[in-house]
């Protein structure tokens, strides 16, 4: 039985997922309206052109619909899970274009497995951060740290590839990634304080 659209809109993401697993199109429509914009934005940021971003976004959402309710709320927020799927598919498209064998898995369960369980308090609080605040946290990085994180996350490059591209030792790349991620985390923690 489908829930009415207005009722679905009052449900939290985590409450929508079982309905989507039961093939409720009204629940999925609300889910798409909540996350379609940021999903498309992420896909566009990675693949760099509109038609490909549309393909990635469409495939990611249809994957969520057809795979059923694999989401496990103990492992993080629905939005982060959805964006992980979009990112994996977009990176796979990038790598396919470059003639490389896909490195990332299409198994959306694997996305879940990569996420740690429990202790979601901070992450749930982060959901209330605005995109502008999140951009501020990421944008506060020193250029060399931002560069390695961008190449890894949005470009799909390994740390060895990044080291070769930038002409720096592998250990330098590791260090910049670690420091950069810790700095973003610190900025977010300050925002919550």
């Amino acid at each position, binding site marked *: 039985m489908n829930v009415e659209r207005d009722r679905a809109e009052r449900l939290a993401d985590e409450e929508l997922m079982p309905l989507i697993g039961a093939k409720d199109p009204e629940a999925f429509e609300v889910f798409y309206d909540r996350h379609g914009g940021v999903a498309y934005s992420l896909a566009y940021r990675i693949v760099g052109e*509109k038609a490909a971003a549309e393909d990635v*976004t469409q495939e990611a959402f249809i994957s969520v619909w057809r795979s059923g309710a694999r989401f496990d709320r103990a492992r993080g927020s629905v939005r*982060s899970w959805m964006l992980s799927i979009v990112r994996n598919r977009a990176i796979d498209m990038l790598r396919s274009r470059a003639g490389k064998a896909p490195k990332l898995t299409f198994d959306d369960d694997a996305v879940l497995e990569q996420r740690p369980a429990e202790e979601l308090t901070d992450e749930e609080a982060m959901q209330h951060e605005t*995109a502008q605040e999140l*951009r501020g946290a990421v*944008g506060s990085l020193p250029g060399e740290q931002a560069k390695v994180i961008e190449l890894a996350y949005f470009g799909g*490059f390994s*740390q060895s590839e990044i080291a070769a591209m930038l002409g720096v030792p592998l250990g330098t790349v590791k260090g910049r990634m670690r420091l950069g*991620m810790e700095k973003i985390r610190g900025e977010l923690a300050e925002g919550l304080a």
Partner: protein
Amino acid sequence: MSEINHEHWQEDVAAYMLGALEPARATELEQHLESCERCQAQVRWLMPALNALPQSVERQEPPPGLRTRVLAEVRADAGVASAERGDATAGLLHRLGGWLRSLGSGPMGLRPVAGLAAAVLVVVAVAGYAIGGGIGGGDDGSNGGSTVVTGKPPGVTAKVVMKSEGGGTLHLTNVKQLHDEHVLEAWVQREGEVEPVRALFVPDDKGRATTTIADMEGVEVVMVTTEPRGGSEAPTSSPIVTVPIPQS
């Protein structure tokens, strides 16, 4: 575990979370994580930073047609699932029979006994599209699989891009705008039998339409018809395009 060894692993945690570790190294780190509470805590602590990355990108307005296509495909799936629950006997033969009967009443007078292969050829002729049959190499750059092209501009042009995981993406161009209450529906033929893809979609304002086909295994032909909104159990119109798929 020695402190030096632990530091050695902690240096890789951020790269691991960013997907930047080489696969073998990532596997080793995952094994280490299973038993190292400090590294687990590091992953948990950095997770909000990782989640901030995708949400920090500059917002882009999705094309309105994207929402329409995604939801049309979902509603088609939901409709098929509902129909399957309600009538387990409504199967492929019924759908195929209905299609062939409808064609038989048309100007070509095709009879069901003529077989599906002939039906495909005839409906292409009715639709007025020449089969180009050219095989490209992923010229849209979207994937490394084979691409099949059929139709000639200004008629509908179709490409099926094979995906590495066994599915495919169907791209149409030059599709006429649909009347209200109508959608495009995709079908595939395996071993001479037509199956629904359970995919409804609509063209955008530039006449482009895209849908996904989850399983391309054994598919000989991909077809698209125009159907009433919500889709049909069997094709109710001649295909606007057919795409023969080369068998490897």
